């Protein structure tokens, strides 16, 4: 039976110790979960195992045989099959071509043996319950199917050990369930499986044993059956964490944001989105769930004024704003927390205080003469740093030097302290650790209590379920009817995320 062993791996990047003396033992037939926050060192460890990074100390053994360090080719030959978070497939090629690429079976004349390749792939498909059509072009596959292709590719190359790095990040709940079934299948076949995640519930569901990593060190190692969520969260973060922020009853007011048949025209770079109609009341959070790439970005950017709308109306407090420029919308009370804080939200090479006034400097109280009132800007930034506990507490530190959580706090502080009527929030906790997530969620609920209307666009279904008063699903640019939070279930929303209940075929707009 194959077995994976990792002994005393240490890996440093300059003064940062990404992995500090990590030892793992994964016997065949077992699923080991590696749990840790972003930046805890999970990916570094996986890259060391896959031979993509050379460790400073320690070794990796397959079946008791040490494998050469920092050699991805050797790792693959030793049977290590790594499924990366981001797929490494060529969309224009078919499934079978992607799978055999670099390991092509040949006919006697030296041509690629198509028949043999497809036969092998079908057999692997059947054995592991990884259903996919070998002849289909990868570009036509869903995200879940593409992942199956990645896994088949690993097996085709003779993987004896399967490592999955955050495999559920892009999947719907149903696709996640299918993946978990497959994972259990491999384990029953006697393979060791390593499952990397920062999601507690998934780890508890799929693994036999869980290893918790924090700041590069193993902080916990136990059979999953003996672990509790609160205990794992504490090991992960280093302190007790509230996993689900309490949400009190909504006190709804007037409609603050209303979209009426809003459409964004397709361009070479983006699909058509809409027509979308929705309304959000003061004191309400409307959650928009959906799989990435179904129009989330377009919806948010059209609302804020970054891309033109083709048809339809946007009303902010009864006033039509679809032709109003970005700055004016901000001044009218429309706040925006973009999904990618580093690309859209911040100027990383600006100090914190300039980032704090980034969207407001053209208006009072920061506008002064031809320039800005630095004193006013700096004192406002200082107050924001205190109010949102942005560390390390200096307003002159560059945004680049802040951690992801503190960058997000800075963006939130900017958008919340302005006192918005409506806040459009996209992916507010992407890449944040459990502690920072708790902070962000609390702030959003505070803002709601103060009477703001919040449109929450998130790929994290759990987040949408935890915060929203009503939930609508975005699928191929169309929005479902909102479902009251009380009536929403994970499964129900999950099915809608996969397209159930939406008009089918070309009419849905691909």
């Amino acid at each position: 039976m194959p077995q994976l062993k990792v002994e005393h791996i240490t890996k440093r990047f300059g003064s940062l110790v990404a992995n500090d003396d990590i030892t793992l033992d994964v016997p065949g037939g077992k699923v080991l979960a590696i749990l840790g926050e972003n930046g805890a060192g999970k990916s570094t460890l996986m890259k060391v195992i896959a031979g993509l990074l050379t460790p400073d100390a320690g070794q990796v053994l397959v079946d008791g045989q040490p494998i050469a360090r920092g050699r991805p080719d050797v790792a693959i030959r030793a049977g290590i099959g790594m499924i990366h978070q981001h797929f490494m497939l060529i969309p224009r090629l078919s499934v079978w071509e992607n799978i055999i690429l670099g390991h092509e079976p040949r006919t006697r004349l030296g041509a690629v043996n198509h028949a043999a390749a497809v036969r092998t792939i079908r057999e692997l498909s059947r054995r592991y319950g990884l259903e996919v059509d070998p002849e289909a072009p990868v570009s036509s596959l869903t995200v879940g199917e593409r992942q199956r292709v990645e896994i088949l590719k690993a097996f085709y190359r003779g993987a004896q050990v399967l490592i999955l790095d955050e495999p559920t990040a892009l999947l719907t709940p149903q696709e996640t369930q299918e993946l978990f079934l497959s994972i259990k299948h491999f384990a029953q076949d006697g393979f060791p499986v390593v499952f990397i995640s920062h999601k507690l519930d998934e780890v508890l569901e799929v693994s036999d044993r869980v290893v918790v990593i924090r700041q590069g060190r193993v902080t916990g190692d136990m059979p999953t059956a003996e672990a509790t969520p609160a205990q794992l969260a504490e090991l992960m973060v280093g302190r007790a964490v509230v996993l689900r922020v309490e949400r009190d009853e909504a006190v709804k007011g007037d409609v603050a944001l209303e979209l009426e048949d809003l459409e964004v025209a397709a361009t070479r770079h983006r699909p058509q989105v809409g027509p979308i109609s929705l309304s959000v009341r003061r004191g309400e959070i409307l959650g928009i769930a959906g799989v990435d790439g179904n129009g989330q970005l377009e919806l948010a950017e059209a609302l804020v004024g970054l891309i033109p709308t083709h048809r339809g109306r946007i009303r902010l407090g009864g006033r039509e704003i679809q032709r109003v420029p970005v700055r004016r919308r901000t001044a009218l009370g429309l706040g925006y927390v973009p999904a990618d804080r580093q690309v859209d939200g911040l100027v990383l090479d600006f100090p914190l205080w300039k980032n704090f006034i980034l969207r407001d400097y053209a208006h009072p109280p920061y506008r002064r003469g031809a320039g800005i009132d630095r004193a006013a800007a700096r004192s406002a930034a200082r107050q924001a740093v205190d109010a949102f506990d942005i560390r390390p507490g200096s307003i002159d530190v560059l945004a680049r030097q802040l951690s992801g959580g503190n960058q997000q706090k800075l963006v939130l502080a900017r958008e919340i302290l302005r006192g918005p009527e409506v806040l459009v929030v996209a992916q507010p906790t992407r890449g944040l650790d459990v502690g920072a997530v708790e902070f962000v969620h609390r702030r959003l609920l505070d803002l709601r209590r103060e009477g703001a209307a919040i449109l929450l666009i998130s790929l994290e279904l759990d987040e949408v379920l935890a915060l929203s008063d009503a939930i609508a699903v975005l699928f191929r640019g169309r929005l479902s009817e909102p479902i009251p939070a009380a009536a929403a279930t994970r499964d129900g929303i999950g099915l809608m995320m996969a397209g159930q209940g939406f008009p089918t075929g070309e009419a849905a707009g691909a």
Partner: protein
Amino acid sequence: MSHSRVEGFVRPIVLVLLAFLVSSLIMVATHYSPILVFSSLISGAFGNLPNFGSTLVDFIPLAVIGAGLALCFQAGLFNIGAEGQFWMGAFAASIVAVRFAAMPIVLHIALTLLAGTLVGAVYALLPGLLKAYRGAHEVITTMMMSYAAIEFGHYLVESGPLSMPGAIPQGYPFVASASLQPVIATTQLSAAIFIGLGAIVAAAWLLYRTRLGLGIQILGKNPKAARVSGLSVPVLTVLGLVISGAFAGLAGGLQMVGVTHQLFDGFSDQFGFTAIVVALLARNNPWAVIPSGLLFAALDSGAQAMQMSAGIPVELSFVIQGLIVFFVAADRLLDVARRKNWLARLRGPRVPAPGVKEVG
């Protein structure tokens, strides 16, 4: 933060010292004493009042163009056609200087410089519009238009409307009310130096003290954040190029009224191109353009004196200038390499920088 600010001061100095070091090796290899070369360069550039005056004469166009380019580079726009904008500014200035009858000197100078500034700006407007609304790369358009301007200049003084009859290709001499007289005897240094310094202050003020300057910095550092903050990227793109064109045009006008008092073929000593390096060495800071411009001006004017007094060929000064250009370019490449993690990739797979979120 303070660390990077210190680095911002120290690195250009280190680069220049490196260039001095390597050029010293070349001097030794070619049997010139580096000590003699540098000492005659220094005395040639700063040794007495006339020499210093001549250095300042070269300093004016380099620093004025460089200050405008610094602003433009801060916006992430690479205007490399300042030479052409400089020429166009000079043409416009000489038309106003020659074609208008005598008038009060302040007014005539002001009109002449205004004409140079406006035409320089307009000449950068076209690349600006093409970049902003059609996506045409400004490096190509400004460079090509620069050659067009220079050829146009040759036409103007050789057979065009500005040419004075005679064997020598040159324009008509300026009337007295359009000429600034030297303030240091035996040099060409005029009150243009004060106008030039004023222009540098204006560039620094514009960049660091106005909302427009803040917008330019945001655009240069993160165009997407610029849009989120409500800035119009096309408008800022046009403005960035137009402003640098205006500074180059002003420099052209200053060269006419302050130095040559006449348009002729060789009035520009490649100032528009050297100014690119002046701005880059100054790390696109208009204030730092002052020492940076002074360095290049000194290397130019000191070289002439060095050849005359010590018999050392001027080319050695060009070697030094070339090496500074080389080290500035190499330094920029290192910056880009660091940002894109090339070095890390050479050593092995990508290394997450501390503070940057790790995927997974």
